[in-house]
């Protein structure tokens, strides 16, 4: 075998374990789900194999599903905006702090050491009828009976922000770290105030990080089902809850498959839009 051929093969040999894992654990199951989504659930309990569009027609036309899908995107969007507003200043502070940045980043990562479910459940102890906040306010005499703070949309958004904020902070932090601090000094020396130089220089240069963090928050937020399950009320279901409901509760695998593929496609389109936008931004940065 010639050296060139061996060298041409080498990357594929090195990639093969990863490709094998991705293929076996992601692509193949996904194909199963695609096939499943065209099957039919029969009244007897078994599934009928075949090529039927019934599940897809139901998923695309049922107004309830459409309402939940739009609600899911709305909650994800609100969460993303809140994460950006809360996360950017935090990331800026960490990136510009003169102390030990590693410790600050570690503190931010600390919640990841605790299970996501536990972290979500902990809000019940804070916001619940006999939670910390209500008992505190009642002890102070501010209120006479507990406020209803749980099991509504606000609680779901709060839980999601809690979960997703580190993703935003990390992405923005990385992009801020990559910006030369001399740029802000140069801008202020030319007459811009600190705030103007932030708006003119630092913010535009950190937009790729903000966009990446935003995409991550949005996709993870739109795909969540634990947070609405634990913190939301019956009307706060998100799209992943429908999938859960169809598959686990109703044992209707074909419909659940179609619904999960629908969510996957919607989010896929959003990622594609982002990719195109960022691709253009990168191009603009490189060429002018």
């Amino acid at each position, binding site marked *: 075998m010639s050296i060139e051929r061996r060298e041409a093969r080498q990357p594929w040999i090195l990639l093969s374990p990863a490709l094998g894992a991705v293929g076996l654990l992601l692509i193949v199951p996904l194909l199963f789900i695609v096939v499943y989504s065209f099957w039919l659930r029969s009244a007897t309990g078994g599934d009928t194999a075949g090529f039927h569009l019934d599940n897809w027609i139901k998923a695309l036309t049922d107004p309830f599903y459409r309402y939940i899908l739009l609600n899911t995107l709305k909650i994800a969007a609100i969460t993303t905006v809140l994460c950006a507003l809360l996360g950017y200043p935090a990331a800026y502070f960490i990136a510009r702090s003169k102390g030990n940045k590693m410790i600050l980043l570690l503190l931010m990562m600390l919640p990841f050491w605790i299970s996501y479910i536990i972290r979500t459940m902990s809000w019940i102890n804070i916001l619940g009828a006999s939670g910390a906040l209500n008992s505190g306010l009642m002890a102070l005499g501010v209120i006479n009976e507990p406020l209803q703070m749980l099991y509504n949309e606000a609680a779901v958004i709060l839980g999601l922000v809690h979960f997703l904020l580190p993703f935003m902070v990390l992405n923005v932090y990385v992009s801020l770290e990559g910006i030369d601090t001399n740029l802000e000094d*140069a*801008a202020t*020396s*030319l*007459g*811009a*105030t600190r705030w103007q*130089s932030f708006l003119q220089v630092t913010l535009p240069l950190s937009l790729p990080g903000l966009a990446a963090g935003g995409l991550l928050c949005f996709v993870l937020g739109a795909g969540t089902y634990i947070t609405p399950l634990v913190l939301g009320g019956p009307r706060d279901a998100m799209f992943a809850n429908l999938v859960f409901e169809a598959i686990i509760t109703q044992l209707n695998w074909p419909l659940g498959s179609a619904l999960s593929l629908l969510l996957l496609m919607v989010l896929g389109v959003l990622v594609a839009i982002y990719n195109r936008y960022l691709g253009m931004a990168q191009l603009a940065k490189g*060429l*002018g």
Partner: protein
Amino acid sequence: MAAVTLGNIVKRFGSFTAVQKMSLDIPEGSFCTLLGPSGCGKTTTLRMVAGLLDPTEGDITINGRRVNDIPIHQRNLGIVFQNYALFPHRTVAQNVGFGLKYRPIDKAEAQRRVMQALELVQLPHLADRYPSALSGGQQQRIALARAVVVEPDVLLLDEPLSALDANLREDMRVELKNIQKRLGVTSIFVTHDQSEALAMSDQIIVMSEGRVEQVGPPEEVYNTPASEFVARFLGAANILEARVTDRQGDALALDVPGFARVVIPRSRAPKLGDASAAKLVIRAEKLKLMPADSTDDAAIMIQATVEGVDYQGQAARYFLRVNDHALQAINMIDIAPFAPGDSVMLRLLPRDCAALPAS
């Protein structure tokens, strides 16, 4: 009138004192260089004038106005950074025009001044490019254009040439100096490169460990160093222990045992005073190597042995021995350099020597 003055400036970072009691007058329109090794406080000083750092003590004035409490964006300065610090998301024209947005200038006038600045640095054809498409030398010129377009009171240059390669650095040195002269803007230049400082400055401020070692025009700093540090930092110098044996009128006789007796003018030893212990400073290029049988009644001739030769093309650096003194000499090569082991005659003119106090 001094354009920039520093009065007893002290800068401390925690327990570390970066600048100690520094006072300085920088005349209007002059090109002054803060020269010193890294960590000597030169960049800290520049950043204090810029307003990027606050002095711990002391006053900074620009055109007679105390600027300590004036924020950087109101100081009307131009800064050129070592790494250029061009805005990567703005075109060259937008970069140059950045400072004009914050001044009461209408758009047409701003555009005219941007083009004028780009013509000054000879790059008007690059107005619509982005910085990433420019070479290092071009980026440096754009950074300079951006700094001068606002007609600053003071131009601050923080090692602006050190990121360029050697040939380009020498070209930019000449160009930078020409532009400064043409604009007549008071400039403070920071460098650790003694040849840059000597070539460009009206006035050199040699710094070491947060203190000013010497202030003066290039020839004075070079020829009459005020301290051993200055003598060693600006080029290669031989520094020999000497005793003052005689003082007569303007003449000062110094005896270096095992080397020579040298009579120098008093003006070459301004710091010596009445001390009897001294140090004789001889620049390496002032020791001229000649064949062993040479004579010259107008000069001091000293027998020496060549111990090593560092060939540099047009010149050579010789490592010499005279009794127990090790010396260095840098000479232009005439035909062929002397070889190790050669016996030579060193020719030295007393007026090329300087003397320092011993301690």
